[in-house]
């Protein structure tokens, strides 16, 4: 019997697909060029011409949200991708080497965790200048540390299982055992963690852009849109609503996707008979 997919997985996947679809669509088409300024038509409420209205420079909010989705996804993908590339091998290495190797990786992780991701990013952008690249570097650093830790924990559990011991006894080297036996067994956990980190990266990117340290204008960013909207809260409150909803829906979608995937893939759930 096929296991029933959790509801959160459905919802999460749908929202995430929507986000990806909007981002891809923005490559081909937006209602207006997202950077087109028309001060004379600023702060207009939603209308047939501008579905979500215009911002304080008269730019089309819908177009900005669409391109903003692409920017958010790009930063999230880069931050999580680099995190995976750095963190997973480190975690596997730590689990495989044991003792001092383990210790080194764990302490490096502590070093990164000592500073919250946003603070690291602020420090980095203050030193190297604001911009998307430095935001990605800072978030990737944090993601690598999280993924290394998760990978290490999961890999250690797999190493202790009898079939790995058997493979080693039959003459498989440690590297080969890691790739053939350990990695496939921890892939689910890593994917779930990566999905959640993706959501965190989107929030952090928005936070940094809100502070003016992230994606730089003229390229639109949800966080910057929120920051700009702040002084219009009394006069044009909708300015803050649309980017806010965009961030909330994306993060909710990715988090639910991660939760759903975990429920579906988690071996403990599988063995405990949740089918």
């Amino acid at each position, binding site marked *: 019997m096929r296991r029933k997919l959790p509801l959160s997985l459905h919802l999460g996947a749908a929202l995430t697909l929507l986000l990806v679809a909007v981002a891809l669509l923005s490559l081909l088409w937006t209602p207006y060029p997202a*950077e*087109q*300024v028309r*001060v*004379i038509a*600023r702060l207009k409420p939603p209308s047939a011409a501008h579905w979500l209205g215009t911002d*304080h*420079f008269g730019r089309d909010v819908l177009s900005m949200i669409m391109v903003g989705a692409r920017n958010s996804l790009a930063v999230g993908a880069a931050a999580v991708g680099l995190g995976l590339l750095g963190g997973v091998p480190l975690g596997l290495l730590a689990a495989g080497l044991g003792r001092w190797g383990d210790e080194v990786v764990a302490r490096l992780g502590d070093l990164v965790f000592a500073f919250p991701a946003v603070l690291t990013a602020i420090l980095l952008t*203050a030193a190297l*200048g*604001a*911009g998307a690249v430095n935001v990605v570097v800072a978030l990737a650093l944090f993601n690598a540390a999280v993924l290394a830790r998760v990978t290490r924990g999961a890999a250690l559990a797999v190493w202790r299982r009898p079939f790995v011991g058997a493979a080693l006894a039959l003459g498989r080297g440690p590297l080969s055992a890691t790739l053939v036996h350990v990695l496939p067994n921890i892939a689910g956990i890593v994917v779930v963690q990566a999905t959640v980190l993706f959501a965190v990266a989107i929030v952090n990117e928005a936070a940094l852009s809100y502070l*003016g*340290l992230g994606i*730089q*204008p*003229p390229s639109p960013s949800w966080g910057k849109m929120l920051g700009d909207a*702040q*002084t*219009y*809260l*009394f*006069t044009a409150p909708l300015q803050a609503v649309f980017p806010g909803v965009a961030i909330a829906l994306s993060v909710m979608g990715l988090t639910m996707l991660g939760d759903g995937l975990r429920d579906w893939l988690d071996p403990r759930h599988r063995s405990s008979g949740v089918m």
Partner: protein
Amino acid sequence: MPTAKQRFTLAAFAFAALALAATTQTATAQPRTDLVVGMALEPPHLDPTAGAAGAIKEVTYANLFEPLLRVDADGKLVPGLAERWSVSEDGLTYRFTLRPNAKFHDGTGADSADVKFTLDRARAADSVNAQKAYFAPIAQVETPDPQTVVVTLSRPDGLFLFHMASGDAAIVAPESAATNKQKPVGTGPFRFDRWVAGDRVVLVRNPDYDGAKPKLDRVTFRFVSDPAAQVAALKAGDIDAFTLFSTYEALPEFRNDPKFVVTVGSTEGETLLSTNNARKPFDDVRVRRAMAHAIDRKTLIDGVLYGNGVAIGSHFPPHREGYVDLTGLYPYDPARAKALLAEAGYPNGFDTTLRLPPPPYARRGGELVAAMLAEVGIRAKIEPVEWAAWLEKTFKGKDYDLTMIAHTEPLDIDIYARPDYYFNYKSERFNALNDALNRTQDPAKRNALYGEEQKLLAEDAVNGFLFMLPSVTVQKAGLTGLWVNRPVQANDVTGVSWK
């Protein structure tokens, strides 16, 4: 449900509260004598003779410290510590007569020796004065008697009196000069009370002041940098008047509210798209002219200042005598801009960097300017920086392409003659005009020379000349005497009172 007894207690409390409210109301029927002024930036210290930050002068000028002369609300020179002055025919000797009973806040007398100390300190080799150039023409300072100071210049300087009326020329005492940064001691009608770092500076009336006594007895300067918090503090009544208010989008709300009065006046802040004239491709005048044609000043003023600003065509404020209107020299014309770029060898435009300091006029304005430049093919990457980084890299290091900044010093067109200024502009003709200006005393001739300078700068399109920064004040109705215009950096509260 409250019991009968509880209800009685509640009623009693309510009555007491009402009675209290009534008494406070009668108390406030007397005009208030305190004032809370809001400012966006906190001063780094409180010694106007040792720092360029405008916020220092906005707290201390005329209130706490007095220069020999003062600039009043209309930009005229009026007596400060000197009650009168005279200039010799050749423009080289200045004689100042000090107020006989002037005293510093620590009780020591303010006499000619203090003035000599101040001027010698400001022009010394190790001087940390932000406007050292103001004091450079001084050859010697003599003190024939305690009330008289005679200053001899090595060359005529048409702006000498004007410079001696700036906050940078505030008169300080040798006993307190070293500690003025934290505990300022001046000769003004208010004295320093306390400074709560990050929050406020409090001044109280100086009971021993020898001149006209101010109506206020307590003035608090509160520092609120966040635009939303500025609006909220005004609406909540925590701040009585916010000067140099820059959340322009909130002005319609305050204008429509009878509890507030909004005034919009002029500052000396020429806002520029400062251009590195030494760096390619900006060393080509055609490129600079192309940028001038690409920028739509009206849209910029509407978009950034919500219409509360005046366009400029050169580095001179329209409200001053000698102004020449050059705003029509480069009308907004993207096609012309593209043609000029092609002529200069950039038919497809080019990539550059636009560095932006923190004020809203720069961050918001820079975004708009970048969008306008993009229309003609100039792709400007925006680089937001903090003040310290801006001063270090751009202003001192001259390592930049484009930046956006308001030059708020009054009558500062002479900066284009400075050999190592960050514009990297070099013009023999301008330097000759500037020398002639320094030798000229006659106002009509001076104005003509100012006109020539403005035209030359506009023809060379040295910088993008954008707009004058407005002086916007949001104040509670019933407050009178605050300056509308900002001829010098100051929040002069000596003439402020409540109705």
